[in-house]
Structure formats: C-alpha cells, structure tokens
C-alpha cells in the first residue's frame, strides 16, 4: 500500500481508537456511579488511545518511507552478478535508473543486458514486498498501540497527565526541529565539502583567482582540471552587494527618519505599507525587472555617454537588489530610532536645536549601533540573494571592480552548478556544496554579529 494511502488510514484508525476508548471509559465509569469517579475525563482516555495508535505507527511509517528506497537500491545492486558490480556512485546511479526504467516499462527489456532485466524483476518484487510489509507493520503497530491504551482505561490511572506529558514532548520536538534543520544544513554541506577538498586543495579554493568549474569529459583535454578559485566569485558578490547597500542604506535610512520624525500620521500610515510591499515582491520579479528593463536601460545610457557596458551588468543587479532591501533597512532603523527614549529628543529640542540637528547630533549617534546591526542584516540578505543575480548578473567569473561589466556571484554558481542533471560525484557538483558552506558561514557570522549588536542595544534603553 502507498504511503499516501496509509497516512489517512492511520488517522482513521486513531479516530476509531478514540471512539472506542471513549465508550469504554464511560462503561468503566458507569458501575462506579458516573465519570466523576474516574481519575480523568473520558476525553483524556480517548485522546491517549488515539495518541498511542497514531504516534508509533507514524514513526514506523516515516522511518520505513525514508530508508526504503536506499535499502532496496542496495539489495538490487547486490543481486547483480559480481562481475558487473558498479565501481563508482555515478555508474551505480546509471544502472539503477536503467533498472527502474525497465521495471516501470519505459524501457524495452530487449535493449538492455540480461542482468539488468533480472535486476528489474528483483526490484519489482522488492517494491511489492516492501509495500506489503510496510502496510502490515504500520497497521500492526497502530492496532496494538490502540489495544494497549484500551486495556489501560481504568479509573485508577490518570490519563490526563499521560496525555499532557506526551503533548508537551511533541511540542518540544517541534521546537527542536529548528536545531535539526540547522544540523541538516551543516551536515549536508560539510560532507560534500570534505569530499570536495579531497580533490581540490583548500588553499586553491580560497586563494586562486580563476573559476571555471567545467571539467572535461576526457582526462587529456585542455583545461580538464577545472579551476576552483573562489576569489572572483567573492569579489563579484561583494561588488553587487556594495552597490545594493549604496542604494539601500541612504534611501532606507532617510525614509525611516522622515517617516518617524517628520511625516504626518496620514502619510506614515499610507507610505509605510507601500514601502513594506517592496519586501513582499518575489525576487524572481525583481530579477525579471533587472534583466529585461534595468540592464538594457543602463547599457543604452552608458553607450550614450560613450562607455561600454555589458548586457548583464553588476550595476543593474546591484541597483535592483538595493531597491529590494530598502524596506529591511528602513523598518529596522525605524525600530531603533523609535527605541531612543523620548526624553533625549525633548532635551535636545528644549535646548533650541532644530529637528534635523536633534536627529543628526543626538538620536542618530544613540541609534547608531542598532542601525549598523540592521545594515549588517541587510548585507547578509544581499549576499545570499539568488534570483536577481541569476537573472541579471551573468555567469562569467570576471575579476573586476567595474560595475558595468558582468560578474558572477557565489549564489549564481551554486544555482547553475546544481540545476539540471548532475553526477553526484564530480568536483563540479561538489564545488557547489563548498560554495554553499562558504555562503552559510559568511551569512551566519554576519547574522550573529548583527543580532548581538541589535540585542545589546535594545537592552541599553529598555
């Protein structure tokens, strides 16, 4: 039976268990003189039965569904004659896809070697068996869980405490999922990165100035090595982020100041949501705008001034990205400006300073750490942004500081290296994970520092 069908079935069983336990608890209570003689309300006995039915069964189901594919693949490979055992992971995945295509009837069995056909039938029987075993096991666990809870419906056991403890544990697991996600990220990038550094020395990766991940098919081809120097990617990322911040910081900061200090209530209540809207627009829309409107415009503009601009310029991507992060800067600065105590403002104004002098000489210095924290967060946003640069910045890894040329970024390379079919084993694919790790570390550092500054600053005035 399919996982998709088993899931609702388990839930139905849980509901049945709920109903049965509810009736039983009333039946148990009846001779004692009503449910007030039970340790807990019938609801709790019923809920406990439902939990006992569903949770173990769902855990079994998830574990089985998670590892079924890998285990079956291993068995199928092992069933092949010894002399055709695949030597590398790439070869294995090729053979496996052949086998599964034969099994699914997409590939005519006459076109493939006999051992593949044999393996395909193994795969088919294994799949069937796995489905059957899975269904049997899951249902068994669900029914026995429910039965166990049913036998424990007794006036002496306080089911409420059981249910509440279980619920609290579930809540804890949900909260801990965030840790698990982080662990998953770290695990997924680190393993591949270590394998990558097994092929490309870490010093080459960090300090070499050329990037061309296209490894050749034959070993004797020119440039078959591929070059994995991250410096041009990093300068490209920094160039675009710097342009973005040059746009976003003044515009965001000044709008925040205007909205919090000068604007009337009406202006603020209409301008603020509109500004926030900039943050809500999907990045692919900004990418479209940058690639098809801003980039050609910049090119034409540069040509009229006599400059040469590439059709995919860092400037276009940076400008549009700057517009995108304006609301981050403005809403974070707005928060910190508002957090500066009113007494400081009043004191300055009472001494005869104008509003702008108060802003520049009193509030801004007081809010500066918070604003810097906000800018760091915006910078991490800019560095990690993908779609705008994928669509508007280009692929060529130029080591340049000229904003009119096309540059490439870390995120662009991750996306292009991993889109489409890829062998899981080549240095090219692995390099994307190394870049991912680099990106994760850099953004993490920026975030940690920024959050620390913002928090420290908040405590100061609270």
């Amino acid at each position, binding site marked *: 039976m399919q996982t*998709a069908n088993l899931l609702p079935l388990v839930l139905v069983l849980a509901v049945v268990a709920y109903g049965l336990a509810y009736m039983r608890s009333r039946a148990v209570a009846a001779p004692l003189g009503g449910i007030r003689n039970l340790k807990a309300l019938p609801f709790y006995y019923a809920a406990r039965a439902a939990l006992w039915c569903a949770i173990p069964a769902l855990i079994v189901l998830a574990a089985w569904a*998670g*590892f*079924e*594919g*890998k285990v079956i*693949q291993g068995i199928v490979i092992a069933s092949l004659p010894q002399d055709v055992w695949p030597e590398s992971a790439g070869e294995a995945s090729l053979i496996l896809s052949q086998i599964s295509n034969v099994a699914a009837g997409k590939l005519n069995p006459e076109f493939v070697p006999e051992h593949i056909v044999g393996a395909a039938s193994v795969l088919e029987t294994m799949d069937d068996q796995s489905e059957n075993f899975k269904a049997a096991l899951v249902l068994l666990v669900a029914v026995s869980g429910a039965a166990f809870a049913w036998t424990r419906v007794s006036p002496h056991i306080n089911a409420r405490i059981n*249910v*509440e403890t279980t619920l*609290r544990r*579930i*809540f804890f697991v*949900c*909260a*801990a999922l*965030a*840790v698990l*996600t982080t662990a998953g*990220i770290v*695990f*997924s990038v680190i393993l591949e990165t270590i394998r990558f550094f097994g092929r490309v020395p870490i010093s080459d990766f960090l300090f070499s100035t050329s990037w061309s991940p296209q490894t050749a098919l034959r070993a004797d081809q020119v440039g078959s090595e591929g070059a994995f120097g991250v410096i041009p990617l990093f300068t490209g990322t920094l160039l675009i982020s710097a342009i973005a911040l040059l746009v976003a910081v003044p515009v*965001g900061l*000044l*709008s925040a100041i*205007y*909205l919090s200090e*000068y604007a009337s209530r009406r202006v603020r209540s209409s301008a603020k949501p*509109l500004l926030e809207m*900039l943050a*809500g627009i*999907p*990045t*692919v*829309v*900004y990418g*479209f*705008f940058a690639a*098809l*409107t801003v980039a050609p415009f910049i090119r034409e503009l540069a040509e009229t001034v006599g400059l040469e601009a590439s059709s995919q310029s860092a400037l276009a991507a940076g400008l549009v990205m700057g517009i995108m992060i*304006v609301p981050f800067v403005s809403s974070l600065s707005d928060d910190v400006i508002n957090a500066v105590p009113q007494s400081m403002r009043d004191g300055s104004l009472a001494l*005869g300073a*104008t509003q702008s002098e108060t802003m*520049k000489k009193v509030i801004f210095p007081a809010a500066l750490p918070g604003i810097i924290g906000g800018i760091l*967060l915006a910078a991490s946003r800019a*560095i*990690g*942004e993908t*779609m705008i640069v*994928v*669509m508007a910045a280009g692929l060529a890894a130029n080591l340049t500081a000229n904003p009119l040329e096309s540059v490439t970024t870390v*995120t662009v390379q991750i*996306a292009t290296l*991993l*889109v489409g079919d890829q062998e*899981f084993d080549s240095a090219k694919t692995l390099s994307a994970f190394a870049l*991912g790790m680099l*990106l*994760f570390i850099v953004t*993490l550092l920026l*975030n940690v520092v920024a959050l620390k500054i913002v928090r420290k600053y908040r405590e100061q005035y609270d």
Partner: protein
Amino acid sequence: MTDQRSQAEIVRNSLKRRYRKERRFRMYGMLAIFIALASLAILFADIITKGHTGFVKTTITLDVTLDSDMMYLDDPSDEDQLSMADFVAPLIAALQEHIPEADSAAEKRELGRLIGSYGASEVRNLLKDNPDLLNTTQTIEFLAHDRVSTYVKHADNPRYSVKLSEQQQRWVDELQEKGVIDTSFNDVLFSRGDSREPANAGILGAIVGSLLTMVVTLVIAFPVGIAAAVYLEEFAPQNKITDFIEVNINNLAAVPSIIFGLLGLAVFIGLFGMPRSVPVVGGMVLALMTLPTIIISGRAAIKSVPPSIREAAEGVGASKMQVVLHHVIPLAMPGMLTGSIIGMAQALGETAPLLLIGMVAFIVDVPGGFFDSATVLPVQIYLWASSSEQGFIELASAGIMVLLTFMITMNALAIWLRKRLERRW
C-alpha cells in the same frame, strides 16, 4: 551683557542657515521616500506594459474544406493513413480563399506559416474523433503562429514585426481587415501547462503545482510552527537548551533561501532517495524555510495574550496544558494565522531552493498529485523570462501579474484577519 547679546545675535544670524539646513534635511527624507515609491510604481508599470498583451491571444478562423483528395485521406479511422495524411493543405486552401494572390508553391508555404504549428494536429484530432466530417466544410478557430501574434499585438511598434516578411505582413493586415485574424481573451493561458510555443503555453500547470506545494508546506509548517511557538513561550524552562533553540530559530530566519535548497538536495533527495521535481519535496523545503517566520509571529501572538487570562484559568483549577489549549491558543490564533499567511505568501514567491531540487524541468502536463513532476509559478516565470522569444517574455509578465495577484490577496487577507479578529487588551 554685551557678551550675551552678541551670543544671541550669533544665534539669530545663524538661524537662517540652520533653518535652510533643516528644510534640506527634510527634503532628503522626502526624496528617499519618493525614490522608493517611484521604483515600486515603475516596477508595476513596467510589468503591466510588458505583460498585458500576454492576456490576449490571436486566432485565425477559417472555413476549412476537409477534402479527402487534398489530404490523401480516405478513412480517418485508419491510423496509418492518419499518420501519412497532409493536414496543412486544406488550411492553406482555406487561407487562399481570402488571399487569392498567393498561388506559387513558395507563397503557399509562406501562407501556411501564418498558422501555428499545432493547426495541422488540430485538424487531425478533429477528424480522428469525428470521421464523418470528411469532405465537409467546417469553421475552425486556430491559434495564429507566434510571429503573427506578436506582429498583431504590437502593430504600432516596428521592432516586433521583423520576423515576418513584408509580404506576410501585408497578408496579415488584409486578413485582419476581413476579420479572419482576430484577438480575444487568452483562455489558453489559464487552461494549459507549459509548451515550446508561446501561443500554446499556459500557467495552469504552474498554478496547480504551486497549490500542491503550498498545501504540503501549510500542513507541515503551520502545526509544527504553532507547537514550537507554544513550547517556547509557555513550557520551555530557562536553560541552555532553550537558549540554543532560540538562537537557532533566529539564525534560520536569516539563512539564504538557496541554502535550504542544498539541504533538500542533500538530505531529502540524496539521503532519503525521494524523487526530484515533486511538490512533496518542494513543500518540505519551503516548510523548513517558513517555519522561523511562523514561530516568531506565533510567539508574538502568544505574548500578547494577557497574563490575567492565564491566571484566571489556573485559579479555577485548570492544568498548564488546559490553560494553553483552552485559552491561550484560541486567543492567540488570529495573530498566528496572520503570521502564517504572510509566511505562506513568502513561500509562494520563493524560487531559488526549488531550482536546486529539480522543479525547473520542462513539464507540459498539469500535475495531478503530490508525487507528480511539477513546477511552480515563480519558477515558470523564471523559465519564461530566460527565453529570448517575445511571446515568452509577455507570458512571464502575465505570470508575474497572476503571482502578484495571489500574493496581494493573501496579504490583504492577513491584514483583514488582523483587523477583524485581533483583540487589544
């Protein structure tokens, strides 16, 4: 005395300059807001000017004589004959009725190119389904070839007409005058999946894909997010573990989205062997990405429930869990819903992580389930925007308008919910 007066004088004299500075500073602020809002306006205007033509389709309506000699087809129920028959000939003949001047073989060929490449298969399918129509005359509506469509939609802009020969342009003008070529609302856009030809491509597949993905995201992220928020606000002891979880959540909220794509690729696809390009994996990745947003807004909502309510419930003997389940969560629900809708809107617009888990494949069929290969709206927009054909650019902008409509609706719903349901204590 003199000293004080001179000071007052200095102040008075400097006032003009200071006020000027004040006004200038104010101007800068207004300018900044203007720049931001103007960019927003330009963005919308640009998308609408580029995309409104995407909602229009160009059709050619012809009285086609389904002549069996012309098509070399005697029996439409015979598969072999169907595969050999010439379905273009009757179309050209029908066009020739309107444009008699085209009679050389080359001109006929040119004429035939006005009809989209699916015209012939449309005739074929018609005959296959209704074999009795052979040797009758039928009025059939075809989608015009993409070049014709672009030419007709941008009649006033010579940049878009270059792909048609001058002769063809003349013919198209003539046919338009006769009402054979006409434009109407593009229902194809909302009823089909992707296609290699802009005129035949639609976003229904992408919309359904987005919907399936969002359902998975919602089913995972909403309950888990709320449970996590409740735990952290109500049950978590003040210790290192809780601190660690909180730091993790705050950092996850700021991790670049593409990193979540790497996670999905390495863990869900690589480790668990899940299929590529399916809404289930996409939904799971997006759920992990949205979780921090939902948790953070959920916590804020729980915090806003006044302690007096908790104390009152505890006072009449409710357990901690009963207080939470019966009082705190129902009261915090509007705030949690608002945060979740905003998080879902973000997830709906997300592209980068889905690229990595293979949701960029070219998929013609509308997905029918959670395990079918699918693409989503923003990825479809990306795919079309990367094409060089004018027809696809139009479609991409039209797709953006549809996507933005969805997102604005969701955000408006969130605001309405907040206004309607949120209680202030």
